[in-house]
């Protein structure tokens, strides 16, 4: 195993950040206190028009919820990353973001001058700031992930936010299958019930992932994912760190 250092940090509550994650790396995300929500969006750093596509992700895998075994697709039929571990079983990707007005209505408006880092930041504004760093704007804001949050649907299509879904210590691991620009925020889920603004941090660790094995749970989850991995292999054909036509990472562990 290489000497490669792991990077670990904490994303405070009501914050936003972005980072470029290389293929072959994994991001472990932990809900430190319980009740966290992590808004997340993916873009291709080589082509910012390629972005996370929630409808393709859901219909390709015949699922409404995201959990271990699922892959997170771009609009170009490729996989940004795979969910290789998940202690929760359900993450939301249809409810979007909290907004300045929805946060003010639910929790009261606390601006930065009043409250400093304890302000009531909202998910929409948080993403706008990160998008602008890459020349992107509100046109580019796709349906996002809300990790650690569960919203279920009844027979008539009615949504219900499931309270107390994520507990302290719950974790999800994303393994990146192509280079990905990751945008994230730690603002509350837009359906979080009224009360005190849930100021919840998350911990993240970035480290080298294990190579994708032939029996990988995401690769074999469904025939669709097998084809998604093949689309990634075509995209990365000729790339030095990517040797197999089936899309397995090669050579990453032998530096």
């Amino acid at each position: 195993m290489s000497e490669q250092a792991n990077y670990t940090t904490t994303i405070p509550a009501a914050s936003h950040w972005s980072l470029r994650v290389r293929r072959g790396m994994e991001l472990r995300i932990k809900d430190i206190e319980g009740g966290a929500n992590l808004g997340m969006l993916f873009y291709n750093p080589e082509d910012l028009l390629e972005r996370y596509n929630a409808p393709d992700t859901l219909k390709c895998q015949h699922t409404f919820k995201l959990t271990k075994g699922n892959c997170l697709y771009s609009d170009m039929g490729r996989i940004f990353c795979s969910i290789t571990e998940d202690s929760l079983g359900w993450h939301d990707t249809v409810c979007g973001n909290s907004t300045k007005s929805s946060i003010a209505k639910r929790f009261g408006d606390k601006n930065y001058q009043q409250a400093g880092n304890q302000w009531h930041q909202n998910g929409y504004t948080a993403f706008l700031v990160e998008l602008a760093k890459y020349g992107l704007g509100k046109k580019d804001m796709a349906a996002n992930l809300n990790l650690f949050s569960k919203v279920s649907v009844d027979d008539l299509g009615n949504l219900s936010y499931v309270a107390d879904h994520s507990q302290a210590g719950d974790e999800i691991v994303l393994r990146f299958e192509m280079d990905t620009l990751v945008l994230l925020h730690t603002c509350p889920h837009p359906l979080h019930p009224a009360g005190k603004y849930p100021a919840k941090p998350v911990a993240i660790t970035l480290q080298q992932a294990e190579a994708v094995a032939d029996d990988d749970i995401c690769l074999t989850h469904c025939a669709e994912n097998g084809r998604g991995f093949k689309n990634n292999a075509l995209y990365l054909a000729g790339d030095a760190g990517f040797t197999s036509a089936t899309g397995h990472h090669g050579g990453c562990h032998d530096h």
Partner: protein
Amino acid sequence: MITESKLNATDAVIADTVLAGDYYMKVVKAGQTMRIVDLEGNQAADTLFYSAADPSERYSAMDTIREQGNVFLTTGTVLMSNECNPMLEIVADTCGRHDTLGGACATESNTVRYDLEKRCMHACRDSWMLAVAENENFGMTKRDITHNINFFMNVPVTADGGLTFADGISAPGKYVELKAAMDVIVLVSNCPQLNNPCNAYNPTPVEVLIWD
């Protein structure tokens, strides 16, 4: 909710037929009512809406779903923009349920859903790409193509979080009618999907009627 319209087709100021595999891109003014008719049944009309005054304000599936607390669209549903403003309201619906989770077909997603060799079959996102390329006056590009509505599609969610593409509940002559709350650009891809049994592998035309 099934609601019949009181409007007569003969009073419409615009009546256009959109063939399967074609797009439709026009401005509907605030106060006008637009009807989309499923002429032969079980066809999907993959539809996007934009504010004509500022197309960066557009239909948002997630804001619409969240604000009405329901994943299906029918009579009474207000279609919300990405700035949480009402864009249109569904005022009549003889189908009863329309999808906004499943998104549009694309040549790229067809490779994943069906077969890697389906990459050259005509798909909704290609129709939209042609629409934005041929209508430069609207100033739109691929950046503007987002998570859409599938009128006449039935995509139920199961209790354990599954997503199913159920048999169509539409039929020949069923329609959905929307009243515009702002001037909107309507962009329809009349779906050319040949891989999905939901249309019996037979894409068919829709009709768009507009009343003042």
